[in-house]
C-alpha cells in the first residue's frame, strides 16, 4: 500500500515529517517499509506560451513552434495538432528531466532546430509516450510562462510504502484508513469529503431502495445474497471521453496505478482514497440495461479486462446483465462492457462482496487485483454508496459526466456497528502492565470505537463498521496495546507454576549418538527430507521393495524434491557425489534424522516418522601424511564406526551376518542384528549404484533404524573389578575354509575356552603361500585368566588344547 503524503494531509493534519510519521506508524502496527520521494528527478518543466506556429518548411505534418518559457524564446518542432498561438502549454526545456530520468536536449527535425519538447500529460506524469487521442497539455491562459509545473500541479511527493499485516489490511488499505490511524496517534480529526460524509450510512437494515431516475433506467437483482450482502448502482449520463486532470493522474501514479481514462481513473482514485472498489459499466452495453448478481453457471465464459478468456465455475460470483456474465464480482470487469471513448452512459457499481468468495475466485483464476485485495480483507459496508457518490461527484467536477438522480441499493443483509465487551482489568492482566482505565477508554475512542464504561468491570464497546478484524475482547486489548505502545511493555520473567527442564532419554541418547559419530570422524550432514522419485531406481530396489512405498507431494515446486524419503541414504549419496564433483578427496557424512513410512496409500493417516541414522563415506580415511598413508574407506572401516556407536549406546550383543541388499556389494554387506531385532545394514555400495550416483571409487555406507537402537540402548554401566591375578596369553593360528565365517570360529573358541578365556582378538588374516585355495589362515590371540588365582601353565595348556582340538573337529580347521 502506497500512501502519498500530500494526499494523506488532505485527510488529516500531520505534525511530523515523513520519517517521523513512518516511525510512529510502524510502532502502531502499520509497518512502513520505505519512504520514497516521487518526482525528485524532475527539472526544467515549465509553462510556456506559444508565440507563433507555422508548418515545417520541408516535413509535412510537422509544425514549427516559437515558445516563450519565461527564460528565453525557443523553437520546437512538433507533430501535435490543434495548437494555436497564445496558448499556454506544458513544456520541458532543453536540459529538462522527465519522470523516469529522460533528459531533453536540442535536436534537428528536417533541418530545423527543436529545443526541448511540448508535453502531453502522460509525458509529464509518467515520462512515457502520450496516449492515443492525447494532445499537448494546454494550461489555463493565465498561467505565467516560466511557472514551475512541478510545484504548480504538484508533481512531486513523498510516498510511504506500507507493508500491511492481514489484520490491518481490513481498514488501512486506503488513504482514509491510514488517516484514521494517524488521527488516533495525533488525537486529531479526520476530514472527509463532504459528499462522502453526507452519504455515509453507519447502519442499514436489509432491504431494497430504488428511486429516482436511476431506478427508472436500471435495476439490480441479487440472486446470491450470501455472497453479496450489498449492491448499489448510480447512473451517469452525458459521459464524454476525457483524460483525468494532471493532479489525479499524478496521485494515481504516485500510489502505483496507471492513469487510463477519466472514468476509470476516478474509480481507482476513490478506491485508493476510501478503500471501496468501484466498477464502471458501459450501461448501454448491458443487455436490458440491468444487473443480476449471481453465481456463474457451468460453462459460462467471460473475457476479462486484461483480454483473457476465463472459464467460470459455479463457485464464482459474477455480475451479469439480463443474459450473460459481464464481470467477476469484486475481482475484475469484462471487456465487452468496459467504458470506452464511445461510452455515453455509465452504471457505477459499488458493492460489498463476501471476502471468501472474492478470495476464492481471485485465487482460482490467479487474478490479484486491487479490488480483490480489498474485498477479501473486508470493506466498510457503510461506505459503499457514499464512496460511489464521491466518485460521481468527482466526474461531475471534471465535467465529464452528469449524475442522474436517485440510486439503486439492494441489501440482502443489513449491517451496522457490532458490540463487544471489554473488561478493563483484563488489559493489564494480559499485557503485564498497568494502564489507567481512562487511557484504555481514550485509546479506543481515538480509534473510532464507542466505549460505554457504565458497566464498571465490563464495558460495552461499539466496533465501527470499518473494523471487520475486531471481533472479541482480545482484539480490543491488542488495539489498546498498540496505541499505548509496545515499547512501554516491561520485561518480567514468569512467576507461575514451577517447572524443570530436561531432555527425555531418547533426546539425550540421540544427542550422544551424534557426538559419538562426530568423534568417530564423520561430518554431520543435513539433507532434504524430500528426494527425487527416481532415487529408488538408482538404488536398484526391487519393484516390491517396501522402501518404494513413499509419500509424494502433490504440488512440488520441483520433481527433484517431491518424494518423502524412506531412507537417508539417497540424500547422503547425492551429497557424496556433490563432494566428488568438487574434487574433495575424502568425505564421510552421517545424519540422524526422520524417514517417513506411510501406512496405507494413498494415506488417510499420518506416516510413521522414524528416526534413522546413516553414514556414507569414500576416499582415504585420513588425509595423506608424511608418516604413511591411511587406509581407504571400505566395509570394515564403516563397520568399525557402527560397532563403536552401538557399543557406546550399550546395544549388544550385535551380530553381522551376510545380507542381500540390492544396492550394496553382494559380497561386502551385512545385516546388523541384536537378538531378534533388525538394526540395519552396512556394506560397500554396489558399483552399479555408485555409477547411478556418479560416484567414483569405493563407497561404504550403513543405515540403522535408530528408533529401534534407542529402544535397546542403555545408559547403565557396571564396574567390573580389575584383575588381581596375571593373565596367560596363547596364540592359535589355523587354516579355515572360506565358507565358514570367522564368527563361527570365535564362537567355538569361546565355548571351549570357557570361564578361563578372558578375551580373544583376531590379529592376522592371511592368504597365499602355504594356504589351500578357498581357505585363509586366521590367527587369534587368547588371553586366559582366573579371577581367584594365578593359573599354572598346565591348567592353561589343558584348556588351550581343548580349543585347538575343537577347531579341528568342529570346523575342520587345519592348525598351523
Amino acid at each position, binding site marked *: 500500500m502506497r500512501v502519498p503524503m500530500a494526499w494523506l494531509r488532505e485527510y488529516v493534519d500531520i505534525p511530523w515529517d515523513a520519517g517521523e510519521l513512518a516511525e510512529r506508524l510502524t510502532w*502502531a502496527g502499520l509497518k512502513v517499509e520505505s519512504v520514497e520521494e516521487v518526482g525528485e528527478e524532475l527539472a526544467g518543466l515549465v509553462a510556456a506560451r506559444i508565440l507563433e506556429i507555422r508548418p515545417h518548411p520541408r516535413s509535412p505534418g510537422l509544425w514549427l513552434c516559437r515558445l516563450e518559457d519565461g527564460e528565453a524564446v525557443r523553437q520546437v518542432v512538433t507533430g501535435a495538432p490543434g495548437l494555436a498561438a497564445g496558448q499556454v502549454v506544458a513544456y520541458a526545456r532543453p536540459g529538462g528531466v522527465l519522470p523516469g530520468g529522460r533528459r531533453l536536449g536540442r535536436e534537428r527535425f528536417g533541418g530545423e532546430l527543436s529545443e526541448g519538447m511540448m508535453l502531453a500529460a502522460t509525458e509529464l506524469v509518467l515520462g512515457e509516450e502520450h496516449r492515443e487521442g492525447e494532445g499537448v497539455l494546454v494550461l489555463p491562459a493565465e498561467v505565467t510562462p516560466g511557472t514551475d509545473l512541478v510545484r504548480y500541479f504538484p508533481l512531486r511527493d513523498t510516498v510511504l510504502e506500507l507493508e500491511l499485516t492481514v489484520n490491518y489490511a481490513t481498514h488501512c488499505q486506503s488513504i482514509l484508513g491510514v488517516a484514521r490511524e494517524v488521527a488516533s496517534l495525533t488525537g486529531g480529526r479526520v476530514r472527509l469529503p463532504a459528499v462522502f460524509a453526507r452519504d455515509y450510512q453507519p447502519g442499514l437494515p436489509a432491504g431494497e431502495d430504488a428511486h429516482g431516475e436511476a431506478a427508472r433506467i436500471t435495476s439490480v437483482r441479487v440472486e446470491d445474497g450470501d455472497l453479496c450482502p450489498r449492491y448499489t448502482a448510480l447512473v451517469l449520463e452525458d459521459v464524454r471521453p476525457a483524460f483525468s486532470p494532471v493532479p489525479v493522474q499524478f496521485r494515481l501514479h504516485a500510489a502505483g496505478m496507471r492513469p487510463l481514462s477519466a472514468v476509470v481513473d476516478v474509480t481507482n482514485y476513490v478506491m485508493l482514497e476510501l478503500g471501496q472498489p468501484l466498477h464502471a459499466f458501459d450501461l448501454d452495453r448491458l443487455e436490458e440495461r440491468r444487473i443480476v448478481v449471481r453465481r456463474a453457471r457451468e460453462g459460462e465464459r467471460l473475457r476479462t479486462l486484461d483480454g483473457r478468456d476465463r472459464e467460470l465455475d459455479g463457485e464464482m460470483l459474477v455480475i451479469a446483465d439480463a443474459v450473460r456474465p459481464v464481470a467477476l464480482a469484486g475481482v475484475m470487469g469484462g471487456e465487452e462492457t468496459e467504458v470506452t471513448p464511445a461510452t455515453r452512459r455509465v452504471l457505477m457499481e459499488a458493492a460489498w462482496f463476501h471476502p471468501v468468495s472474492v478470495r476464492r475466485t481471485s485465487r482460482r483464476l490467479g487474478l490479484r487485483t486491487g479490488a480483490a485485495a480489498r474485498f477479501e480483507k473486508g470493506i466498510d459496508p457503510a461506505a459503499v454508496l457514499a464512496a460511489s457518490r464521491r466518485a460521481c461527484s468527482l466526474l461531475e467536477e471534471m465535467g465529464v459526466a452528469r449524475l442522474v438522480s436517485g440510486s439503486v441499493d439492494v441489501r440482502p443483509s443489513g449491517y451496522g456497528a457490532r458490540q463487544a465487551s471489554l473488561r478493563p482489568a483484563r488489559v493489564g492482566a*494480559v499485557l503485564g502492565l498497568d494502564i489507567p482505565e481512562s487511557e484504555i477508554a481514550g485509546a479506543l475512542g481515538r480509534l473510532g470505537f464507542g466505549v460505554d464504561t457504565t458497566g464498571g468491570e465490563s464495558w460495552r464497546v461499539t466496533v465501527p463498521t470499518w473494523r471487520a478484524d475486531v471481533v472479541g475482547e482480545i482484539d480490543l*486489548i491488542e488495539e489498546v496495546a498498540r496505541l499505548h505502545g*509496545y515499547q512501554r511493555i*516491561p520485561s518480567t*520473567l*514468569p512467576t507461575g507454576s514451577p517447572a524443570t527442564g530436561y531432555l527425555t532419554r531418547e533426546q539425550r541418547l540421540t544427542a550422544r549418538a551424534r557426538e559419538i559419530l562426530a568423534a568417530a570422524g564423520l561430518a554431520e550432514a543435513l539433507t532434504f527430507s524430500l528426494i527425487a522419485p527416481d532415487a529408488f531406481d538408482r538404488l536398484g530396489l526391487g519393484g516390491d521393495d517396501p522402501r518404494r512405498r513413499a509419500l509424494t507431494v502433490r504440488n512440488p515446486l520441483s520433481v527433484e524434491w517431491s518424494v518423502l524419503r524412506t531412507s537417508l541414504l539417497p540424500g547422503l549419496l547425492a551429497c557424496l557425489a556433490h563432494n566428488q564433483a568438487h574434487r574433495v578427496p575424502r568425505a564421510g557424512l552421517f545424519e540422524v534424522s526422520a524417514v517417513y513410512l506411510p501406512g496405507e496409500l494413498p494415506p488417510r493417516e499420518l506416516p510413521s516418522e522414524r528416526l534413522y541414522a546413516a553414514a556414507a563415506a569414500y576416499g582415504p580415511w585420513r588425509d595423506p601424511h608424511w608418516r604413511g598413508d591411511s587406509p581407504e574407506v571400505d566395509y570394515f572401516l564403516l563397520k568399525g564406526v557402527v560397532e563403536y556407536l552401538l557399543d557406546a549406546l550399550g546395544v549388544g550383543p550385535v551380530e553381522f551376518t551376510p545380507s542381500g541388499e540390492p544396492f550394496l556389494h553382494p559380497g561386502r554387506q551385512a545385516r546388523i542384528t541384536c537378538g531378534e531385532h533388525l538394526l540395519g545394514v552396512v556394506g560397500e555400495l554396489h558399483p552399479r549404484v555408485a555409477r547411478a550416483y556418479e560416484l567414483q571409487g569405493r563407497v561404504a555406507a550403513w543405515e540403522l533404524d535408530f528408533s529401534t537402537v534407542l529402544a535397546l540402548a542403555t545408559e547403565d554401566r557396571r564396574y567390573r573389578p580389575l584383575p588381581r591375578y596375571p593373565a596367560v596369553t596363547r596364540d592359535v593360528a589355523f587354516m579355515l575354509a572360506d565358507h565358514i565365517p570367522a564368527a563361527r570360529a570365535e564362537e567355538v573358541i569361546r565355548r571351549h575356552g570357557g570361564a578361563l578365556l578372558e578375551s580373544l582378538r583376531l590379529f592376522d588374516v592371511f592368504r597365499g603361500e602355504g594356504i589351500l585355495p578357498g581357505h585363509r589362515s586366521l590367527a587369534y590371540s587368547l588371553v586366559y585368566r582366573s579371577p581367584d588365582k594365578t593359573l599354572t601353565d598346565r591348567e592353561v595348556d589343558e584348556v588351550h588344547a581343548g580349543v585347538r582340538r575343537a577347531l579341528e573337529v568342529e570346523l575342520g580347521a587345519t592348525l598351523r
Partner: protein
Amino acid sequence: MEWDWVRLRQDAEAEVAGAATRAELEEVRIRYLGRKGVVTRALAQLGRLPPEERPEFGRQANSLRQGLEEAVARRREEIEREEETRRLREEAVDVTLPGVPVRRGSLHPLYRVAEEVKRIFLGMGYRVAEGPEVEYDWYNFEALNIPRDHPSRDAQESLYITDDILLRTQTSPVQIRVMQAMAPRLPVKVIAPGKVYRRDTVDPTHSFMFHQVEGLLVDRGVTMADLKGTLEEFARQLYGPETRVRLRPSYFPFTEPSAELDATCPLCGGKGCSTCGSGWLEMAGCGMVHPRVLEVGGYDPEEVTGFAFGMGLDRLTMLKYRITDLRLLFQNDVRFLEQFI
C-alpha cells in the same frame, strides 16, 4: 716391597677419569679391582707382611679399594649421563613437522545452534517437544485460527500430500499437540525445534525446507511482559549480556496481541552495520496465545493465558557463523561441514 700408595691412587684415579666409555671403565676397574687386579693382589700379600706392618698396610689398601670403587661408580654415572645426552641429541626431530592427523568429525552448524537454543531454554525450565513434520491441515492451520480461506495462507504456500495432509509450514502445530496432551495440567512449558516446509524455490535466502524453534508457555497469569522478559533473557544468553530487545506490533492468526521481537545486532552491538542496517535484527515472531487456540488446546482462556514464539534457526545459524548463503547448510560440502569441528 714398599708400596707407593699415593702414586698408585693417583694413577688409578687418572685412569678412571680417562675412561670414555662404559667398556673402557670396566677395563680399568678390572685392572685394579678385578680378581687379578692390582689392589686385590696387594691385599693378598697382607698375610705375608710382618704383623706390625699389617694394620697400616691393610688400612691403606682398603682405603684405596674403597676410593677406587667410588670413583668408578661416579665415573659410570657420568658416562651414562653423557651417553643419554648424546642419544637424546641424536633423537631430536623437526618439531615443526605436522602431527599425526586425527580423523576429524564435526557437528552440523544448524544443529549446534539448535543445541544452544535448547540449552538456554532447558535452563529456564522448558522441555523439548516434538511433533510430526507430515501434519494434518487441521493442526497446521485450522486449529491455529487459520481457516481454509484465510488470507495468511497466502504467505505460507504449502506442500500437500492429500487435501488434508501436508508438510507442516511452521512448528506451531506442536503447540496444539502439546496442549492437547497436557491439558489440564500446568504449566505447559516447551520449546519445539524442527523442520518446516514451504513451497519455495532454493536460493541464497530461501529454501523449501528450513528450521524453526517454537516456544510455548501456558499458565495462570502469564503476560506479554513475561514474553518480552523471557526472550530478552534468551537473547542475552545467546548474543551477550549487553543485548537489548524490543517488541514491534505484528500479526499472527494464532496469537493476539502479536509482535515481532527485535534484538540488538550482535555484530555491531546495535550501532548499525551492513547485516542489520538499523542496529536491530528480527529474532522472533511472538505473541499471547489466542483464546481460541487455548480452547482448541483444551484450556480455558478465562483461567490461563499463554505466550508463544517462533524463531528461524537457519537465520540464527547464518548470523552466528556469518554464513551468507543458506544453500551451504544443505549442500553438505565437507569443506564447509568440517569447519564446525
